[in-house]
């Protein structure tokens, strides 16, 4: 089976279309970053409080917002989160309400506000959906519903763990009612738990609180890491090829990064730490296709000395087209699986990869190689020699016998 065979597409001839395409996306992204959504930063970078709450029934964000509002937290945002059938909401507070003097104050107030109604109806009881297994164990030890003797402690610890596991692993964090424990643990235990606990209609799934200092620190580090990564690419490729190859590859990757961040801004999706991780990965990975094309250009320059660079580049892109598309396509397949099945926590991360791999593949064909040609044309216009021979030798089929892997390894 083969998808691409002996293609002969004039990629360089279409460079103005490519340029226009890239410009449209870059400018749209830049405009959105500047005048529309800005760069939507996740809680990691801007600081603030996020509380993810799962409900036993379909939640009503405006009712929840009212509850929290009544409790005195005026600027909370409440929104549905994830797949609708998961009944989850995300409650967020700005950095102003997340001071380092009492970092978790906002979180505590949110939970108290949510518990407000149910708790007052069940005064003196604990909330089973937000109880730790330690609290359950202590309660059971005190009530001793099974009248256990010496081994009460390990037995009740195990029972408490079974209850918490049922709640967290089977019911995804929320029990609709205490009766759901029938069959999981002994009836006497269930009856005893009913005396001391009630089942609220929600459970806290996840809490993220980032103070202003950490947010600032992480912002700085994310920018530094991205720059170091780009610099690392530039140096490595300049050493392995010629400096102009390095510059072309890094410009291409920068273009990919810009467009990816731009699309995040256009979609108003938050850039979190994991999105930065995805972007750094893309900086490394997008280069792969570019390197494949560059390697072939280098090889063909030696083989086809008479032809001009533009033809060599076109030929090289066509020769490597099938592997460029296949490698990117296979990685795209796995990233798509991640996007579709990896869950909400990884959604931003996998979205960045999905966008980045598409853009990265396009740009290694449409941006990186034309930069090389443009540079060479610019040089020859100024009356200089065309681009010089690559530094590295070896590996070309014009040599009498292809080098063995071992020999090549020494050179690397």
């Amino acid at each position, binding site marked *: 089976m083969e998808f691409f065979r002996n293609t002969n597409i004039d990629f360089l001839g279409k460079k103005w279309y490519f340029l226009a395409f890239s410009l449209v996306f870059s400018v749209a992204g830049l405009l959105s970053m500047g005048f529309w959504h800005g760069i939507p930063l996740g809680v990691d970078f801007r600081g603030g409080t996020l509380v993810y709450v799962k409900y036993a029934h379909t939640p009503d964000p405006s009712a929840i917002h009212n509850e929290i509002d009544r409790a005195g937290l005026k600027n909370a945002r409440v929104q549905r989160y994830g797949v609708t059938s998961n009944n989850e909401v995300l409650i967020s507070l700005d950095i102003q309400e997340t001071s380092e003097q009492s970092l978790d104050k906002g979180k505590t107030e949110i939970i108290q506000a949510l518990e407000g109604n149910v708790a007052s109806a069940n005064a003196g009881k604990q909330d089973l959906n937000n109880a730790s297994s330690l609290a359950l164990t202590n309660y059971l030890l005190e009530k001793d519903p099974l009248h256990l003797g010496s081994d009460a402690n390990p037995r009740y610890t195990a029972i408490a763990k079974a209850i918490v596991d049922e709640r967290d692993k089977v019911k995804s964090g929320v029990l609709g009612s205490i009766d759901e424990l029938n069959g999981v643990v002994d009836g006497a235990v269930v009856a005893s738990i009913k005396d001391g606990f009630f089942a609220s209609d929600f459970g806290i799934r996840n809490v993220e609180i980032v103070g202003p200092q950490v947010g600032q620190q992480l912002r700085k580090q994310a920018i530094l890491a991205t720059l170091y990564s780009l610099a690392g690419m530039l140096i490595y490729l300049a050493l392995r090829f010629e400096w102009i190859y390095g510059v072309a590859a890094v410009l291409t990757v920068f273009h990919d990064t810009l467009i990816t961040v731009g699309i995040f801004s256009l979609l108003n999706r938050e850039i979190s730490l994991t999105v930065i991780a995805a972007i750094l990965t893309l900086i490394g990975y997008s280069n792969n296709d570019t390197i494949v094309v560059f390697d072939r250009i280098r090889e063909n320059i030696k083989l086809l000395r008479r032809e001009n660079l533009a033809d060599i580049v076109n030929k090289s892109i066509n020769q490597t087209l099938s592997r460029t598309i*296949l490698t990117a396509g296979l990685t795209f397949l796995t*990233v798509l699986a991640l996007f579709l099945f990896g869950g909400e926590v990884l959604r931003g991360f996998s979205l960045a990869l999905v966008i980045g791999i598409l853009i990265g593949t396009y740009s290694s064909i449409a941006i990186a190689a034309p930069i090389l040609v443009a540079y060479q044309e610019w040089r020859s216009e100024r009356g200089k020699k065309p681009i010089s021979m690559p530094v590295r030798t070896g590996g070309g089929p014009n040599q009498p016998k292809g080098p063995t892997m071992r020999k090549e390894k020494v050179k690397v």
Partner: protein
Amino acid sequence: MNKNITWKLVVIVGILLIFMFGIFGNPMGWSGKGLVASMRDQIHLGLDLRGGTHLILQVQVNDAVNVDSDNAIARLKEDMRSRKISYAEITKPDPVNHPEAIVVKGVPPEQTSDFKNIVTDRLPDYEASSGTENSWTVSMKPQSMSDLKNRAVTQAIETIRNRIDALGVNEPVIQEHGLGAYQILVQLPGVDDPARVKEIMQSTAMLEIKQSLGGPYSSEEQALQDKGGVLPPDAVLMPGKTSATRDNEGGESWYLISRASAVTGRDLRTAEGSRDENGQPAVRFILTGDGGRKFYSFTSAHVGDYLAVVLDNKVQEVAVIKEPIRDTGIINGRFTEQQVQDLAMTLRSGALPAGIKYLEERTVGPSLGADSIKSGVRAAAVGMIAVLAFMLIYYRWAGVNADIALVLNLIILLGFMGYFGAVLTLPGIAGVILTVGMGVDSNVLIFERIREELRNGKTPSSAVEQGFAHAWITIVDTHVTTIVSAAILFIFGTGPVKGFATTLVFGLAANLFTAVFVSRVIFDWVLSRKQRGEALSI
């Protein structure tokens, strides 16, 4: 079969077994459940998968510097008094931003050299520089100050570790957080309600037993009035403990407490929960031999005076000294049973050298962790099956070759993680999936090159040789660029992101071996079994 190939196959199988051991250890059973259990034993899950709390703490190192410079002031005053050097005042002008700077005013010019001698002899960590009008600035040397701050962080880590160990948290991570200045990273797996742990970690637990010179007063003004408007120089006003459970909501209470301590928390041998004479929960402590002697001589000299138990600069309790006390004492102060246990534990673990502040708190509930594992594994399975199937369809028998290499790639990756104790996080699972996607790229590069060589009329064995030789350098280049950016991610990232970088780096490193060496051996083996001129299935 060629001897060379046999030998290489043995190496491959050996490596396979070694890394299988890394994943499973000694399997607890051969059923699916047993294997999963033994895998969980070898490969550690990150907080985001098992649930738990992640905290970043700021050690307020200036506290430690302030304590040191306060002591320096006390020593300076004493020495200047004993050597009869006069001075107008000794102050710290900016204890918040410059806790290391002490200003001494009004040193007579003729006593300058005496004064400088005191600083060099008695305060080796400080240096004096002259200012205007006979004033001197005595400040801590930069090197000493940075040592002191680093020591405060190390001690804080030690103390926090003692406390968390005493709470019985499994596999906690407590280490310096290299990305910020004087910060500590604490990860507590399985702790989904961090409130109590946080309180225990944060309490400074600085215990001092001092003489009480007066009180209780209802306000600071009243205390001043009582002493005729001027407080004795060797005493300070301290607030008493106000408790919400108290019946008379009298509010504030203030005591006049001597600056010098009879004994401090450092003189404790142990502390434990107990009851006072009224049967109320209280903490009983026992002093060390040295501390006991100090305490005995102090209490002998002060029978009939009042003694104050001061915890974190709050007066817990004031009692009259009825008789000399040797080495045991009791702290009560309307505690609950739980508070008594926690206080005894923090006293045992030692005082924090400086206050701490929380900068970041993330708690993943166990239900989210369990869901994350499910979706991560599902995505990995779908992605992997899609890639394996594609390779089979597109490259036929060579696809089988690639699939074997890919599976081996994963085994080595997971084995690495088992051996190195690396932590698998949710982005780490994503890293595993990406390894599959990026790892198979190497096979594609090689296979496409082989196809190209075959089209150019090469024989199968020569095409395979040329294909591997040409693709090798490209593969190294592509791997290096990806590993460089993953390594930068590893350096800058924490927690989940670090887990991602780990799997990606391990995975791609293993891929160099599987996609190139293993795949080549399989090709050689296939070719060795073929007749000359027989076509290669690729």
